[in-house]
């Protein structure tokens, strides 16, 4: 504020100087003899008017300006020093007389002080201008530089000359504030307490008086606020503390925590307003801090005692208040954050423990998402989205998602989440729009991020993806790719590498089919059937878990196999193809009925059915020797054809023993002309789940070994513990590795000579290039 004023002053000052010099040119700038007492008498009369803000006519002002100049350059001796001393004397007397008036008006001390201060400080500014020449030519030249002040020892600062404005303020400080300070501060504090009690106070006076402590040090660049702080602020803060300690005590008796918080928040905001009304901006935070200490920090136990109930009963308004108050004190929020975390965790665990019925995966995922979105919404709206609470939400959700339903078996969540995604990505989805499916898949990533065992999820996900891709029942390839990309974003390229390869295999296969058909045409060959193939990359597909039954390829397909083998060998070097019968299927048309049916069936079913092209009746033994199918697999597939009424078991026995004779049902009818014989996909057995978990363990070992190699290659030599830590931090994004597994992997890598125990230190390893 006063900087602004200074700027204005300067502008005025220059204007005056210009007119002064214009005058001088007409008169004389030359030093001349001057009678000091006569000239001083004129100056004194004017100065008296200036300091009391009486009217001073412009010409008089200009003359005095010249008089100051004349004294400063007087001949033979400049009279500047004398002028300075006389002015100082005058100001001292003036202030002393003002002090007497102010001091005697005890009832009205503040108002009187304020009135005179307003007048005096303004007048001092004008005087400073009037003495412009003295200031710039005499005082500034004698003044010690900042460097002198910093390094010059033993300089008596009292002897320092001051510019007239500064001198005036200094005199005010010495002769007015110093003797009056006890009373002044006492009364200020009383007035402010009145204001706190809701009584009327004069803001302009209080602010003006308080501000005079700062203003009076205007020229003191280094310790501008020192007087204000020593004289007033320190006492004020003590008083504030005392006052609010009492208030807090008063509020505490007979009120609920909720009411207490409401009142406190009101008082805090009132006090902030009050600071702005009366104080220097440098005090705002200190006052607020003091109040927070008295209202919040002193009563933390009381406030904390309320957190448990408040959070559990979801009293939003109280939570908002509690947050507002507790965040202001160091470590105040910790307990509330913990309560919120516990509450979310309890709510979530409760929600997922209540799920029953068929659709466990969907119920699980949607319960977790519901809890997550409910609390994240609450944190955003009620707790300002504070990072500490978001962190608590994350911790709680992670505990919920990774909780084990049964301590003896591995956590179900990764499997359920994968199944949930499978349900969404399968074409059969019940009446959900594309964007709905998309939204739900996006949301599933929220749960995914909380999974500890992401690799278990990946294992199940890839199995289901394989099924969807091979059976061609994905909603769309775009949706599949989008989901793989989401997982990639969440967990990295390596994580989705195999999923990507599966996806790519399917796309590349389309290319193979096209090229193969062209190749066939070029070679003038024909298969006579519609042939379509997926060529999968071994290793990328999770197919090796169940041992499929062997199968003699039906005659009708031999050419297809032979031709495609030739085609593939021509195109690729060093690759061999293995036909995965358990995954093939085909379409067969019936030719023996009036109506022609098109039947979709599995490769095994097809192999059985096609045998009947050669004979009307076949025994189980004959079928077995032709197809070479394993007994169990054969029985199931024949049974499925019997169940579909395509084949008739002529013996009528339940058991399909080798002697049982079968024949085609020549009277077969079906309402549909195109249908599918339900394939005997076994339900996912407990065994399969176990196998999946075992496979995950194998993958983990490989992953850990790769991680160790990577780390060791970069670091060359590493202590055992550091290596373990690095490995854990690198793999945490996927799973939490057990220390014993890491140790085993290190041993294996030592055996394989990737790394070696260091010769220099016992617990150190080195990388072998």
């Amino acid at each position, binding site marked *: 504020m006063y900087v602004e004023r200074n700027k204005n002053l300067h502008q005025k000052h220059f204007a005056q100087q210009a007119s002064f010099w214009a005058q001088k040119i007409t008169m004389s700038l030359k030093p001349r003899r001057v009678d000091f007492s006569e000239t001083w008498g004129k100056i004194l009369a004017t100065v008296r008017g200036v300091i009391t803000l009486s009217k001073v006519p412009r010409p008089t002002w200009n003359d005095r300006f010249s008089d100051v100049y004349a004294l400063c350059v007087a001949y033979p001796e400049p009279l500047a020093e004398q002028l300075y001393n006389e002015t100082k004397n005058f100001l001292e007397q003036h202030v002393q007389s003002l002090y007497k008036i102010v001091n005697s008006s005890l009832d009205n001390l503040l108002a009187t002080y304020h009135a005179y201060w307003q007048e005096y400080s303004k007048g001092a500014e004008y005087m400073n201008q009037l003495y412009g020449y003295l200031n710039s030519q005499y005082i500034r030249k004698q003044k010690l530089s900042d460097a002198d002040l910093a390094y010059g020892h033993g300089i008596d600062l009292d002897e320092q000359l001051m510019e007239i404005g500064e001198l005036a303020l200094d005199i005010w400080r010495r002769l007015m504030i110093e003797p009056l300070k006890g009373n002044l501060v006492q009364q200020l504090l009383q007035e402010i307490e009145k204001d706190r009690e809701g009584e009327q106070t004069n803001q302009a006076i209080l602010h003006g008086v308080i501000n005079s402590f700062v203003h009076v040090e205007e020229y003191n660049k280094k310790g501008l606020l020192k007087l204000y702080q020593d004289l007033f602020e320190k006492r004020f803060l003590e008083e504030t503390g005392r006052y609010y300690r009492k208030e807090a005590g008063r509020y505490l008796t007979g009120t609920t925590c909720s009411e207490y918080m409401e009142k406190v928040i009101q008082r805090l905001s009132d006090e902030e307003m009050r600071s702005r009304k009366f104080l220097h901006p440098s005090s705002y935070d200190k006052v607020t801090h003091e109040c927070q200490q008295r209202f919040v920090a002193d009563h933390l136990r009381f406030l904390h005692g309320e957190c448990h109930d408040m959070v559990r009963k979801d009293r939003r308004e109280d939570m908002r208040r509690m947050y507002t108050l507790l965040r202001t004190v160091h470590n105040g929020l910790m307990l509330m954050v913990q309560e919120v975390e516990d509450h979310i965790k309890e709510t979530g665990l409760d929600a997922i423990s209540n799920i029953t019925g068929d659709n466990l995966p969907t119920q699980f995922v949607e319960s977790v998402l519901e809890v997550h979105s409910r609390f994240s919404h609450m944190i955003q709206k009620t707790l300002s989205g504070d990072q500490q609470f978001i962190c608590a939400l994350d911790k709680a959700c992670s505990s919920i998602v990774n909780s084990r339903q049964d301590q003896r078996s591995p956590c179900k969540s990764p499997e359920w989440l994968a199944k949930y995604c499978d349900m969404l990505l399968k074409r059969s989805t019940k009446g959900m729009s594309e964007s709905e499916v998309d939204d739900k898949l996006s949301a599933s990533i929220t749960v995914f991020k909380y999974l500890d065992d992401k690799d278990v999820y990946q294992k199940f996900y890839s199995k289901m993806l394989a099924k969807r891709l*091979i059976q*061609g029942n994905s909603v769309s390839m775009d949706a599949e790719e989008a989901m793989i990309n989401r997982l990639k974003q969440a967990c990295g*390229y*390596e994580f989705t590498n195999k999923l990507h390869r599966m996806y790519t295999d399917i796309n590349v296969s389309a290319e193979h089919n096209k090229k193969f058909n062209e190749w066939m045409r070029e070679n003038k060959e024909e298969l006579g*059937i*519609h*042939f*379509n*193939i*997926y*060529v*999968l*990359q*071994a*290793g990328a*597909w999770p*197919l090796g878990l169940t041992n499929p039954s062997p199968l003699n390829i*039906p*005659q*009708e*397909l031999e050419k*297809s196999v032979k031709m*495609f083998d030739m085609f593939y060998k021509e195109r*690729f*070097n*060093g*690759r*061999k*193809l*293995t*036909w*995965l019968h358990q*995954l*093939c299927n*085909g*379409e*067969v*048309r*019936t*030719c*023996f009925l009036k109506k022609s049916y098109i039947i979709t069936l599995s490769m095994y079913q097809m192999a059985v059915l*096609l*045998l*009947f*092209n*050669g*004979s009307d009746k*076949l025994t189980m033994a*004959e079928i077995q*020797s*032709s197809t070479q199918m394993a007994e169990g697999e054969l029985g199931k597939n024949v049974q499925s054809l019997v169940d579909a009424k395509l084949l008739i078991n002529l013996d009528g026995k339940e058991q399909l023993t080798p002697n049982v004779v079968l024949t*085609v049902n020549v009277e077969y009818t079906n309402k549909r002309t195109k249908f599918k014989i339900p394939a005997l996909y076994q339900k996912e057995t407990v065994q399969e789940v176990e196998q999946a978990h075992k496979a995950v363990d194998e993958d983990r070992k*490989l992953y850990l070994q*790769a*991680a160790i*190699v*990577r780390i060791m*290659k970069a670091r060359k030599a590493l202590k055992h513990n550091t290596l373990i830590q690095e490995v854990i931090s690198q793999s945490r994004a996927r799973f939490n590795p057990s220390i014993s597994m890491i140790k085993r992997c290190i041993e294996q890598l030592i055996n*394989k000579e*990737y790394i070696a125990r260091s010769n220099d230190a016992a617990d150190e390893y080195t990388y072998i290039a």
Partner: protein
Amino acid sequence: MADTGGDNGPGKKAADKMFSLKKWNAVAMWSWDVECDTCAICRVQVMDACLRCQAENKQEDCVVVWGECNHSFHNCCMSLWVKQNNRCPLCQQEWVVQRIGK
């Protein structure tokens, strides 16, 4: 399969067939045509990339190499090996590349 047809099998005309095959959706898996699934140098399956390539995310480039002795390894494992000893680690014959997978 000739015997399954019995008396009328091979002689029967297509028109007399009870079932005619319309469409076959086949699934096959490709792998490197190797005698041993595991690379003897790095002890990782040849269908998977070797550990060094896995560590550097170069799975796609990690192919198999066959020597004249018909033994096969990861190409990158073998190229490191021959710098020290130009013999097949399995049979100690001099290492001559027969073919490289693609």
